[in-house]
């Protein structure tokens, strides 16, 4: 990869300006038509061809300087990842193909779907290195991704019904809607012209220069100009009948929303100027662009999508002044979007491996904003939560490498391309990047880090002001190396060790340990160990802070964590307990009185904390006695420490714990989230000490005291949410209390009555805030009270009916019915109550109080229902599928994944399946069928090619269901031996065309005497194909997507299929030349190896045995094929059957034939593969062979250019061996 970067990343031309002109946007047909105009500066005099990214559209014409038409070729291997390969079906194989397909069109490695041959007329121009313009006329009709049209199903004018559209995409996906160089490292200036109906507004990046009516006055054209260089992935448009609201505090900020919503838009955006002021002051540099636009759209892809000068938000973020909960979320998101304007769009990543920098910096800046706006407690709490999420994710799924260039990850997908990463990984990636940036802040200091960021911004700003000169604009790109250079110039510090530790390496440190006080020596002896056996663990070496709270004060100690050292000592300052009445100084400097009776009389240690400032990415399981945790909860001022204490106290169900928690809940000066956590913990503690619990149910007294009315504490006061702390407590306490259980493990009567009274006496008439979240919380509380139904003898055929409902359940159900029905008439904000009711119904079904029925959820999950409600209903359905193993519903949901109009819903359903899979790997399930494997495989292989997030989501699901090996439900094919379980190498998508060959492509096609060579290959291919057929009839199963990559061709001159047909052949030739000799030499010994290898590798005994028995004959025959291939491969054409390779056929036909030939060619490669694998196995016994093999693979790699790096790395990384994988 590194080598590739060096050699290939030099694009032989530069883009200086691009114009997008959308002349027609049709909402009825969901189509756009227009052209782009790229101004290109050649850097080499012999430039013959260009590569452009474009997908799923139709190119009408490509023109150079408006005079010369250029020939072009369209080849998109990503449309079908594993072409023609119908049998492999294991993820390791897919992962390889996926990465190579993505790299084959990745603009970062100077690739693209469209290859343009510059006509000879332009050659003199290029020889003088003069810039030229490349004009591409194109259209898109009903795109499957990249652009989303929201057209409500109503009659009326498009503007009146609120139809709108916007672009979206996962990372660099601009190619889905306009031809471009879809790379972050190719910034240029932009001119964007969009013609829309006169009632519509088009919002795009850059400055709106003017809007002009068309001559007929029916349309208007918006002219945007982006003077700051920006890369194509940061370009977006949104068109709709938007209501426009100019920010009264900052006139350069404009907000757009859908009709009827401007009232809440004004409130929602009222604070955004603060974010701008904060960042500008913090970074002491101005906002880099002249304008900023916020567009709120329906059915958005994500909550916020940042682009240059504009952000597309979900309209669901809008809220009125009556809403409390949403305000925090919306503000956080909006502030982050502003931070991304600085780092993300203005300064963007250089390549995907540098993505952690802009993501991390933007995340870090937005966290600073949170700190300023919501306070230090919130900040620390969120940091701790994110740290926990990241470490848990790494523990569960595997480590995240921020910069994946150096290290091969051991995941079921490749982290090296933005389009192959799993969506959950991507989310965690951003969080981890933010945390790492925060660690960097500790290492070099806040001031210096901000100075470095300021330096980056000012350099970029200066660069952006320059006219196009080659290489100035590079300053607007951020890479790991440039970043460390800037840091060292500004601070003089070398951050390479830091990068090595956290960026190039994956995982979190996992500490665990305890301590004892040694009275004789007056020292605390600590033992800190690391658990390196778990997934996603990192062997931490470096400083670690430990804070000890003694009677005489709080002291920090820094230890050096080394390889094998686990014991540490702290000498105590205080000599146990001398003067009892003295106040105890805390870390913060304040002195408090404590009741010290609980502690050990001999020890001066109150509590001890490891890494209190969260300076490392770590998980920490620390042991100390319960009274220390209680002291820590009561007296430590840091919310993270309090939270840790609460989590530890779950284990100690004692009256002392109860008291500490109760005091915390009642303590008004305590951070509210801690109080909420304490409520949850107290419920759990109360349950664990249920047999000797005295008094009313836990929290009842506190609740009455806090929220009961004066004259009658059992009735709740009229709602008044002015005190937000109390508001959150009010929402949480009923839920916590609903978790209480009595000795019979059901919810106590008093609590039920209490909850019902809350419903009854809820009165919001005098409140200035909406109580929708509170009501939703009450319903959630009801669902938490539900316990499994007493196993009634429901022998009757009709199953559960109303008669079996207990009195409590009847009450609950009545309440639920009433709330749900009322919601239809008087819906509340974001239908929170409906959401809770749906979940409640599902809970009742699950616990056997209601008959299991999916119909009701299905109704709520259909398109046209509000998104939150759909999501809730879908999660119920996913759960239903799991518990009932219902095939019909499963199919219905998969249909939704495939066809639903809302891209977010499609993604969400997948993620729900990943979290709550219908069956797990190895579990028996009637749904575990070949059809399901085929369906999922087709989805990820080809059907979801226009949305990487979805495609990778399916990959995740596939991984959850089947792991990385071949699904067991599939019949073992005859040629099993070919299906190498751990095939990480060489299996190339035939349409992934290596660089070198592509050079020859046009020549091949233009030269008419392409014939001999190609015909020879064709024949050879046919022949081997036939032989294979004899071996395995399965091969005849033809993928129906075979021809998908042959999208369209320019009539006449250019025949895509021919091109792709000829190229793999050549590629194979190259491959074979590299390996020929060795392969032939080793033939004889390999048959046995193969057998033994299979038994070693396959994951289950039955599997291996059966495969082994089948394998032997097949292996032999395929080897014979191999020999044949190798012999015939190099150059000597076998003069056979020229007529069978059509030269000038109709595109579709030739497409099919070509892919057939691919298939067979691949078979050859497959065989080769096997050899390689065998070599690998030999290696243990035969060092010499191994080195040879490596040599050969290296050779091959250099020849195959960009696509794969596997052979080397596989050899290097033992953990990825199949034995390890099968778990």
């Amino acid at each position: 990869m590194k080598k590739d970067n060096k050699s290939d990343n030099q694009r032989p031309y530069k883009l200086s300006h691009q114009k997008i002109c959308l002349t027609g946007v049709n909402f009825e047909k969901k189509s756009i038509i227009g052209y782009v105009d790229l101004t290109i500066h050649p850097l080499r005099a012999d430039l013959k061809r260009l590569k452009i990214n474009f997908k799923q559209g139709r190119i009408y014409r490509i023109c150079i300087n408006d005079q010369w038409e250029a020939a072009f070729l369209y080849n998109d291997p990503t449309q079908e990842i594993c072409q023609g390969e119908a049998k492999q079906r294991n993820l390791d194989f897919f992962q390889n193909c996926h990465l190579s397909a993505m790299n084959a069109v990745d603009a970062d490695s100077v690739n693209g779907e469209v290859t343009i041959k510059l006509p000879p007329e332009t050659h003199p121009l290029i020889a003088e290195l003069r810039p030229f313009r490349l004009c591409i006329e194109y259209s898109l009709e009903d795109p499957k991704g990249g652009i989303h049209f929201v057209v409500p199903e109503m009659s009326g004018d498009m503007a009146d019904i609120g139809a709108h559209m916007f672009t979206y995409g996962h990372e660099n996906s601009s190619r889905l809607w306009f031809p471009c160089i879809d790379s972050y490292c190719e910034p240029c200036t932009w001119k964007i012209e969009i013609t829309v109906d006169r009632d519509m507004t088009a919002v795009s990046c850059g400055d709106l220069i003017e809007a002009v009516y068309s001559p007929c006055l029916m349309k208007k054209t918006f002219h945007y100009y982006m003077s700051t260089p920006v890369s194509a992935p940061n370009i977006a448009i949104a068109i709709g009948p938007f209501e426009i609201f100019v920010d009264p505090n900052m006139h350069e900020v404009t907000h757009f929303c859908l009709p009827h919503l401007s009232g809440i838009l004004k409130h929602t955006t009222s604070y955004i100027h603060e974010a701008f002021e904060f960042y500008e002051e913090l970074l002491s540099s101005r906002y880099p662009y002249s304008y900023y636009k916020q567009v709120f759209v329906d059915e958005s892809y994500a909550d916020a999508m940042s682009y240059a000068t504009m952000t597309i938000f979900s309209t669901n973020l809008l809220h009125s002044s009556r809403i409390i909960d949403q305000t925090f979320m919306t503000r956080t998101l909006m502030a982050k979007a502003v931070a991304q304007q600085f780092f993300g769009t203005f300064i963007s990543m250089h390549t995907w491996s540098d993505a952690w920098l802009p993501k991390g910096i933007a995340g870090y800046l937005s966290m600073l904003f949170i700190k300023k706006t919501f306070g230090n407690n919130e900040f620390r709490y969120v940091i701790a939560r994110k740290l926990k999420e990241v470490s848990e994710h790494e523990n569960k799924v595997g480590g995240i490498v921020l910069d994946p260039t150096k290290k091969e990850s051991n995941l079921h997908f490749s982290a090296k391309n933005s389009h192959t990463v799993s969506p959950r990984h991507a989310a965690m990636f951003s969080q981890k990047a933010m945390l790492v940036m925060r660690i960097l802040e500790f290492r070099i200091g806040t001031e210096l880090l901000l100075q470095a960021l300021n330096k980056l911004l000012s350099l970029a700003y200066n660069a952006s002001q320059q006219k196009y000169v080659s290489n100035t604009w590079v300053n607007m790109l951020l890479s790991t190396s440039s970043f460390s250079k800037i840091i060292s110039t500004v601070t003089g510090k070398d951050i390479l060790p830091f990068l090595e530790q956290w960026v190039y390496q994956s995982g979190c440190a996992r500490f665990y340990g305890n301590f004892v006080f040694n009275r004789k020596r007056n020292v605390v002896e600590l033992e800190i160990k690391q658990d390196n056996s778990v997934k996603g663990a990192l062997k931490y070496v470096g400083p670690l802070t430990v804070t000890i709270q003694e009677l005489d004060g709080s002291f920090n100690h820094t230890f050096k964590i080394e390889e094998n050292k686990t014991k540490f000592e702290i000498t105590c300052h205080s000599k146990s307990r001398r003067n009892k009445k003295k106040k105890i100084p805390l870390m913060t400097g304040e002195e408090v009185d404590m009741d010290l009776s609980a502690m050990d009389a001999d020890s001066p240690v109150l509590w001890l904390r490891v890494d209190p400032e969260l300076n490392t990415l770590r998980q920490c399981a620390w042991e100390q006695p319960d009274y220390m945790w209680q002291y820590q909860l009561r007296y430590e001022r840091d919310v993270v420490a309090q939270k840790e204490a609460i989590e530890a106290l779950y284990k100690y169900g004692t009256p002392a714990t109860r008291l500490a928690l109760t005091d915390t809940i009642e303590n008004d000066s305590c951070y509210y989230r801690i109080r909420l956590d304490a409520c949850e913990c107290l419920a759990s503690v109360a349950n664990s000490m249920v047999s000797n619990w005295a008094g009313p149910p836990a929290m009842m007294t506190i609740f009455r005291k806090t929220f009961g009315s004066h004259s009658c504490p059992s009735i709740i006061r009229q709602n008044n949410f002015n005190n937000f702390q109390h508001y959150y407590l009010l929402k949480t306490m009923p839920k916590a209390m609903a978790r209480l259980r009595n000795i019979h493990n059901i919810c106590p009567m008093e609590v039920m009555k209490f909850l019902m009274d809350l419903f009854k006496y809820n009165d919001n008439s005098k409140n200035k805030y909406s109580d929708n979240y509170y009501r939703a919380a009450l319903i959630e509380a009801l669902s938490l009270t539900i316990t499994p139904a007493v196993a009634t003898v429901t022998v009757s055929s009709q199953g559960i009916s109303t008669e079996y409902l207990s009195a409590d359940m009847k009450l609950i159900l009545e309440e639920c019915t009433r709330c749900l029905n009322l919601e239809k008439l008087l819906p509340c904000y974001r239908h929170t109550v409906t959401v809770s009711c749906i979940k409640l119904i599902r809970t009742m079904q699950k616990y056997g109080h209601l008959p299991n029925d999916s119909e009701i959820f299905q109704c709520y999950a259909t398109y046209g229902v509000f998104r939150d409600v759909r999501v809730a209903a879908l999660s119920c359905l996913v759960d239903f599928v799991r518990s009932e193993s219902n095939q019909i519903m499963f199919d219905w949901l998969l249909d939704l994944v495939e066809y639903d109009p809302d891209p977010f819903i499609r993604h969400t359903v997948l993620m729900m399946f990943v979290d709550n899979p219908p069956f797990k790997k190895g579990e028996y399930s009637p749904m575990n069928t070949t059809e399901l494997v085929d369906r999922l495989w087709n989805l990820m292989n080809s059907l979801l090619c226009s949305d990487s997030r979805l495609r990778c989501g399916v990959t995740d699901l596939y991984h959850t269901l089947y792991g990385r090996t071949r699904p067991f439900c599939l019949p073992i094919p005859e040629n099993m031996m070919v299906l190498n379980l751990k095939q990480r190498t060489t299996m190339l998508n035939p349409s992934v065309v290596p660089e070198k060959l592509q050079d020859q492509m046009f020549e091949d096609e233009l030269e008419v005497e392409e014939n001999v060579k190609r015909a020879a290959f064709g024949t050879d291919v046919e022949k081997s194909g036939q032989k294979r057929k004899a071996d395995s009839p399965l091969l005849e199963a033809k993928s129906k997507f075979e021809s998908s990559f042959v999208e369209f061709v320019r009539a006449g001159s250019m025949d895509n299929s021919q091109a792709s047909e000829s190229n793999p052949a050549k590629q194979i030739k190259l491959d074979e030349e590299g390996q020929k000799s060795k392969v032939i030499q080793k033939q004889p010994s390999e048959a046995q190896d193969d057998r033994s290898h299979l038994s070693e590798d396959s994951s289950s005994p039955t599997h291996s045995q059966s495969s082994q028995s089948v394998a032997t004959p097949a292996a032999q025959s395929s080897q014979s094929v191999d020999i044949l291939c190798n012999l015939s491969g190099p150059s000597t054409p076998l003069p056979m059957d020229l007529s069978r390779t059509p030269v000038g056929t109709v595109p579709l036909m030739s497409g099919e034939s070509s892919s057939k030939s691919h298939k067979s060619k691949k078979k050859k490669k497959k065989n080769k593969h096997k050899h390689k694998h065998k070599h690998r196995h030999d290696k243990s016994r035969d060092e010499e062979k191994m080195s040879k093999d490596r040599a050969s693979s290296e050779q091959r790699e250099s020849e195959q250019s960009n696509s794969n790096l596997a052979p080397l790395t596989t050899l290097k990384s033992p953990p990825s061996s199949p034995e390890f994988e099968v778990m």
Partner: protein
Amino acid sequence: MSGDITGPSASRRKALKVAVAALCSENGFTSSEDSALETLTELLQSFLSEVGRSARAYCELSGRTEAMVSDVAMALVNMGFNIESIAGHAKRPNKSVFIPPAQMTQPVIHKTLQAGERKTHPSHIPDHLPQFPDPHTYIRTLTHQQPLNEYQLMREKAASQKRDVERALTRFIAKTGNTQHLFKDDPSAFPLIAIAPSPRPYLNALLPKDQDLDAQEPGETYSTGSKKRSDNNSQGDAKDGAQSQESADPDAIDNPYLRPVKLPKKRKR
């Protein structure tokens, strides 16, 4: 006057009747018919009344409020009565003596019926005037047992009222429209109003209507009503907000989206 059967007039009449009967007996009658006796009593009463009326008239004529003997004398004279005969009549030998009628005893008011201490008369009010009634009849007193907690009742009432309204409304809708059922076999139990997909689901979700119902008091309803109206207005305003702002101060805000759309240039045609 004669209609009264009880009261002071009855006892007066009774006394008169005794007097008339005594006179008759003095004059030698041993028995008389009741009607005759009544007639004579009537005559006597009329005479006495006339004397009184006339004496009062004389007294008032001479500017006094309380009658004197002279006034009575004048009245008698005026009626043609021989005053001198009175003395003789008074000293007649066979004068019959009456036992004065027994004073009616005041009915004892039971303490139990009396609520509170009665007020005594202030000095300017003569004692013969009736006493003050029981205090509770003229000052505000707590006449009923106060419930332990009125607030509780009120909340209770408000809550159940609200609940009843909601229940009735939802039941009505559920009965008249499409429903979904939780129990297949028993569609009437817990009917749920069916969800209807809408073309623009976000509008209902983001512009909630749930707060109107909570406005229980009439005043509150008005205010929310007016607030709603103003909301509508503001929405209406917002639609042409751009224009209005623009017209307000076009120079103050320079934003390209507020600039008017240009007309096409001629040459473009």
